[in-house]
């Protein structure tokens, strides 16, 4: 069975139902609106470019065992497996990846969301505050006093 999805900028995508159902939100919508499937499902927060990429991800992972609840993810230490395809998939610029994380969040595509957040964490890991500021184009808005306080606290908290 096919399902049609509409991006925020009005593009329509037709995908297999089982692919679309990787999104918890769509899955729930399909249960509620069983009788009314002629209309495309509107995704107000997701642009066409991101939606295409999310669908690409879902197509590849359509046969993965489903993880029903967050518990499996919450067992913190459990690493999320990344296959070669996933690695290729994440080779995009960080702006695109951030858009994808937000899209995955609003559609509740859990595995993609976790993949994206790990990607974001990897960017930040091992970077100095200055490097982070440069990368994210953030201004250092601390006053010298605040800066001192943080440094001082850092020593005392053995952090």
């Amino acid at each position: 069975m096919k399902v049609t999805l509409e991006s925020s900028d009005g593009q329509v995508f037709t995908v297999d139902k089982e692919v679309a159902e990787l999104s918890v939100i769509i899955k729930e919508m399909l249960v509620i609106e069983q009788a009314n499937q002629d209309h495309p499902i509107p995704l107000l927060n997701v642009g066409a470019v991101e939606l295409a990429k999310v669908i690409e991800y879902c197509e590849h992972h359509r046969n993965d065992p489903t993880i029903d609840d967050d518990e499996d993810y919450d067992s913190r230490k459990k690493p999320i497996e990344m296959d070669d395809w996933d690695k290729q998939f994440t080779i995009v610029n960080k702006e695109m990846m951030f858009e994808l994380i937000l899209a995955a969040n609003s559609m509740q595509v859990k595995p993609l969301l976790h993949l994206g957040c790990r990607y974001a964490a990897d960017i930040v890991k091992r970077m100095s505050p200055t490097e982070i500021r440069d990368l994210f184009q953030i201004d250092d808005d601390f006053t010298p006093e605040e800066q001192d306080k943080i440094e001082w606290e850092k020593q005392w908290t053995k952090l």
Partner: protein
Amino acid sequence: MEKPTPISVPELCGLIVESLDRKDLVRCVRVCKLWNATFLPFIWRSIKAGENDWPLDLWALEKHRHHVQEVLFNDLHGSQIEILSMELPNVLCLEIITNNVPTEFVEKKPRLIQLAMNDASPMDPIAFWKAVAGLQHLRHLDFVFMEVQKDVIERFWDICERLDTIRLYLTGVAAAPDKSKTLSQVKTLDISMLRGVTSMGCLALFSQCPNLTTMRWNGHSPLFPKATLLSSTVEATWPSLEALDLSTISDRDLSEILKGMRTVKELRARNSDFRDLSFEALRRHLPELQILCIKESREKNGFPAKVISEVLATCTKLRILNGTFVDAEAFLKDERPWVCNNSLTTLSLGFKFEGTCPRNTQPYIFERLSELFSLESLDISGPSHGLCLRLPRGLARLATLKRLRTLNFSETMQRIDVREAKWMLSHWTMLESVVGRLSYYEDRDEELLPRLRVLAETDDLEDSDTD
């Protein structure tokens, strides 16, 4: 307004933080005010204070105390005791291993859900227990080396009435709860070496928890007052029971309990007789079974291969299988496919090769093990002539175990060399620990073990370079 980034969405931030360690977080709070506000709570979420973790600055803790959700106070001395009385309004989970616990300690933690105390005597027990009784959210009590004296025992059992988890380890209680008391909220009761109550009394205590789902009882031998539990009693007393963890129990007693249970999801039987009767009783539960640990069973001759084969071919939800060892030949006779390939994360099972040439049998065993794609921990320790990991007959087949994190082959004779060590590191990228002697020769081992570690470290470095 600027476009949102994942950092500015709180629930996403929580996910990102999961992959960061404390050092990363400390760098993040120094980026800018927004990042500071975002990441600071995660630094203070869980803290440790005590001998090895001092100095934790009181001023800093005071300032950030509302972020603290989890604390471990370990071995505080002198003026450090003061820290116990600090107000931590949002702490949910607290462990304390130190003496002279002041009463204010409890009053200043109003949202506490979980309280663990290890050898931690309160200064004024009566006032202390009165304060604990006032903790409205408390659901989980974990006591190790504690004494609950006569003058507070009644209050103690009153508190237990609203808990869902009670763990008492090497703890003394002045008396068992009153027979009329029903601990109806208790789902998990975990009792090891309880002092002050007889076996019969312990059994009575368990019986006072009608909604028990998890029963853990590690007592002195004999555990059960002989033949007191019949399947009908079990069924009537604990209709929701689904996890068992018992020690020194006889085959007959265990089988009676299993017969009376509606579902068995977890079964651990330490130093017990898990034999034909128990297995027959467990059989109808196999489709729901997730954990089976019978490693320390008294079965000296290893485990009947048919039991293990049956479990692997029937339990679709099995996550952990911990057996002793099986006769390889008998084990291979059962050719049914294993159904737990996607769920099994931990397998502990030795193989014994008797009256058969290991060269002929081993490849089949490796073949079957290679199908366990979800495996994170593999323990094949056991009989000295166990599985031989040497390439290419053994190890190479296990390349499919991509999630493997620990490998244990202690007590088996291996002749693992640098080549195998390298293979492990390149094929099992998540590997964290290897336990066992790598080769016959001790010297060689000393040379290889650090090598394995060194290789692992360089691997890590290379990773960080490519990031």
